[in-house]
C-alpha cells in the first residue's frame, strides 16, 4: 500500500490534486487495529480548471490512466487497490482535510485524518458500521476527549454524541 501513497504524493506534487488526506477504513487503521476493507478513500481538494471554477475529477482519471491505472466505476485501480478520490462534501470533512496529519508508512509519508475527525465523521454519517467504528475508537482510547468535543460542538454533533453514549457506551 505504500506504493499507492507514493503515487498520491506525486499527484499532489504535480498539481493534479490539491491537499489530500486518507479517510475511511484505511484512515482508521492508522489509529486502530486492522479492520477489513476493499477500498481506499482519498479525500482531495480539486484544483479549479484554468479560467473557470468548475471542479472535475477528469484530470485525475487522465493522469492515472496514462500511468497504467485504469478507472473501474467510481474507483481507480492503483497497485491492485480500488481507490476513490472524494472531494469534501461537508464542512466537517473540509476541516478534517485541512487539519489532517502526516504519518510515515515504511519511509513513505502519508497524510491522514486525525482520529477525532474520523470518529466525528462516523458519528455524523451514522450507519451501523460507522457506529461500530466509533465504539472501536473509544475502546482503543485514542480519542482526545477535549479535541473531540470541540469538533462535535463546532459541527452540531453533541446531541448525536449524547445519544450514542446512552445507546452504546453506558452499561
Amino acid at each position, binding site marked *: *500500500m*505504500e506504493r499507492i501513497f507514493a503515487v498520491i504524493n506525486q499527484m499532489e506534487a504535480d498539481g493534479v490534486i490539491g491537499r489530500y488526506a486518507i479517510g475511511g477504513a*484505511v484512515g482508521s*487503521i*492508522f*489509529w*486502530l*487495529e*486492522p*479492520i*477489513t*476493507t*476493499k477500498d481506499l478513500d482519498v479525500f482531495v481538494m480539486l484544483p479549479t480548471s484554468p479560467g473557470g471554477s468548475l471542479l472535475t475529477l477528469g484530470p485525475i482519471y487522465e493522469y492515472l490512466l496514462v500511468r497504467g491505472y485504469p478507472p473501474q466505476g467510481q474507483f481507480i485501480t492503483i497497485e491492485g487497490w480500488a481507490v476513490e478520490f472524494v472531494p469534501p462534501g461537508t464542512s466537517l470533512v473540509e476541516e478534517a482535510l485541512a487539519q489532517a496529519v502526516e*504519518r*510515515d*508508512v*515504511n519511509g513513505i509519508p*502519508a497524510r491522514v485524518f486525525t482520529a477525532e475527525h474520523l470518529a466525528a465523521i462516523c458519528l455524523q454519517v451514522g450507519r451501523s458500521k460507522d457506529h461500530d467504528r466509533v465504539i*472501536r475508537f473509544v*475502546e*482503543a*482510547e*485514542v480519542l482526545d476527549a477535549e479535541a473531540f468535543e470541540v469538533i462535535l460542538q463546532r459541527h452540531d454533533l453533541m446531541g448525536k454524541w449524547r445519544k450514542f453514549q446512552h445507546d452504546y457506551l453506558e452499561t
Partner: protein
Amino acid sequence: MNDIIKQIHVRKLERRKQLAALPVGEKLRMLEEMLAATRAISASRPSKPKNPIRWSKTV
C-alpha cells in the same frame, strides 16, 4: 454479562489495543493478508439457504 464473558471482553479489548499500537506499515500488511484470506474463503462459494431472510426497508 457474567464473569467469563467479561473476561473475554477485557482480553479482546486488550488485544485490540495491542494491535492498534503496532506500526502503521505492519497494520496495513496485516490488512493485505486479511484480504487475501477473505478472497480464498469467498472462492469456496457456500450454498445459499432456500428461504433466506431478505432485507427490506419497509419492515
